[in-house]
Structures are given as structure tokens and as C-alpha cells.
């Protein structure tokens, strides 16, 4: 029984996404995260732990517990 609980905990990924805590079910890639958030990867630039992850690699990079993710896009500005 405790084994089952541990396994559930292991599959949870506690992330910081755009500065806010967010917990998602693991395993998950960055592309999975964008999918869960309903974001179109063609419109977003992703930084993982302050390193840019290029679009073609989003599906290859597995998220780890404690990862810090920044999702940015273009908005109006001067």
C-alpha cells in the first residue's frame, strides 16, 4: 500500500511555470506540458531552467521535478 503511494508521488512533477507552481502528471515532455496548457508550440518560445529549448526538441526533453519553465510570446509593445 505504501509502495503504491510512493509510486503516485514519483509520477508527480512539481514545476515552476511562468513563476507559479504547477503540478502535472509525469512522465511528461515540454511538448506534453504545452499540450496540457492548450498552447500552440509554433507561437511560444520555451526556456527550461534558463536555457532555450528549440521547437524541434520540445518533444524530446523530459521534465524533471523542480524544473523551472518559462513560456513567452510576442505581445504589443513599442
Amino acid at each position, binding site marked *: 500500500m505504501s509502495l503504491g503511494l510512493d509510486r503516485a508521488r514519483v509520477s508527480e512533477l512539481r514545476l515552476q511555470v*511562468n513563476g507559479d507552481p504547477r503540478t502535472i502528471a509525469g512522465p511528461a515532455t515540454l511538448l506534453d506540458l504545452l499540450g496540457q496548457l492548450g498552447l500552440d508550440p509554433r507561437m511560444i*518560445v520555451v*526556456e527550461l531552467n534558463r536555457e532555450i529549448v*528549440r521547437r524541434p526538441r520540445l518533444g524530446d526533453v523530459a521534465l524533471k521535478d523542480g524544473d523551472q519553465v518559462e*513560456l513567452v*510570446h510576442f*505581445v504589443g509593445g513599442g
Partner: protein
Amino acid sequence: MTNINDIPLTVGGRAFRSRLLLGTGKYRSNQEMVEAISASGAEVITVAVRRVDLDRSKEEGILHHLDPSRFFLLANTAGCYTADEAVRYARLAREAGFNEFIKLEVIGDRDTLLPDTDGLITATRTLAGEGFKVMAYTNDDLVTALRLEQAGAAAVMPLASPIGSGLGLLNPYSIRTIKRRLSVPVLVDAGVGTASDACVTMEQGVDGILMNTAIAEAEHPVAMAAAMRHAVEAGRLAFLAGRMPRREVAVPSSPAHGMLG
């Protein structure tokens, strides 16, 4: 209309169809922004890099409203207060995949939004070394402008007056001096308030103007955008035409002879 053939504005090896560059901030609606851009004739459109708002599910980035195939998207580093922060934003902007141009801002003071010129020069050197075409927003100081050029800036963008102030061109002499001494294009960025400001600025011989608030905060932004288009064209043409000398005495325009006896 004229026998003066102007060459197009060219920055970093790329030619642009208008000398008027437009920001996309502070419009009352996206529809109004799109119509104003269209009325201005601008090709270069600035955008900012910001976090996606994850709580507002319907929030859309600006690319939902602007067709990137019709405009040249120039990302800025607005809101950055250190060279490192500006470099980070520039790299994120380039990763969006449109171009290698960046409108570099490193702000040094929250009240006036005047630039941190040390940070600006440092960030310009770093980004130019990474292949960016840096268009650096700076103050109207010649020495800083020269150092930005030496650091590898593709264009230097001195202010007419502080960002969003609408005070117009405060120091035409500085702007003319910077234009005369630099080899890279000089575009005035910030401070224009109305069409006459844009016209006077272009009459100094600068290569272009970037503006945002003067149009976005006008009572009728689309009409002001059209006015700015004409003002930039008129000022450019007047510069190329070469103005008459200033005199402190009157000179009659009609013949002095042939008057009735």
C-alpha cells in the same frame, strides 16, 4: 511629383518600404491597432516579449492579429534594466524564428525611462557577436552613439524626448550631429507627439522614426497614423530638397522694379 529619387531605408543589409516604424502597444483594441498600422504604411512593427498568461485561457499573442508575412516583426527588450536581462530577452525573441533583428533597450531609470548607456553598449557587443542586428535605443548623446556603432550596432536610435512623453524633438542639434558622425542608420525612437514633430525630425536628415504612443493615444489613431505617414514623407522630402537659408531680414518675393510712378 518630384525628381528626387530617394533610396529605401536599409538596416543591416535589409531594405524596408517605409521610413516610419510603428510600435504595437497601448492601442484601445487590436482592430484599431491593425487599421492604424495599415494607414501608416509602416513595414517594421515592434513587439515585446512577455510571459504567456496561463490564467486567461483566451489570451492571444499579437501574432493572432498581425500577419507576419506582411510585416517585419522587430522584437524589443523593453522593460529590461540590465545588459544580461536584455540579452536573455533578445535570445528568446530570435528563437521565435522571424529574424535576427532586435530593438535593444536597457533602461536605467524608471521615472524617465532613459537608457543605461553602459548596459546598452555591453549588450550590443554581446548580441552583435552572436549575429544579431542590433538597433539600439539610446539618448541623444553623440559619444554613446559612436560607442554603440563601434560595439557593432546595425542602427542607432536616439530619442527625440522620453518614451511616451510626446514632447517632440527637444534637441535637433544633437540629432543632426549624431546623424552626421555615424555611418550606420540613425532612426529617432520615442518622443514624437504629433505630425509636425515627425516632420521636423525627418527634416534633420535622420533615416527614419519609430513611434508608438503618438498614434496609439491619439483621439483617432487611424487618422493620426495617416498623418504620420504624410509627415514622415514630407519631412524626408524637405530634407532631400534642401531648405532655404534662414535670414533675419525680409527679402521681397515680388519684383522691386516696375512699380507705378
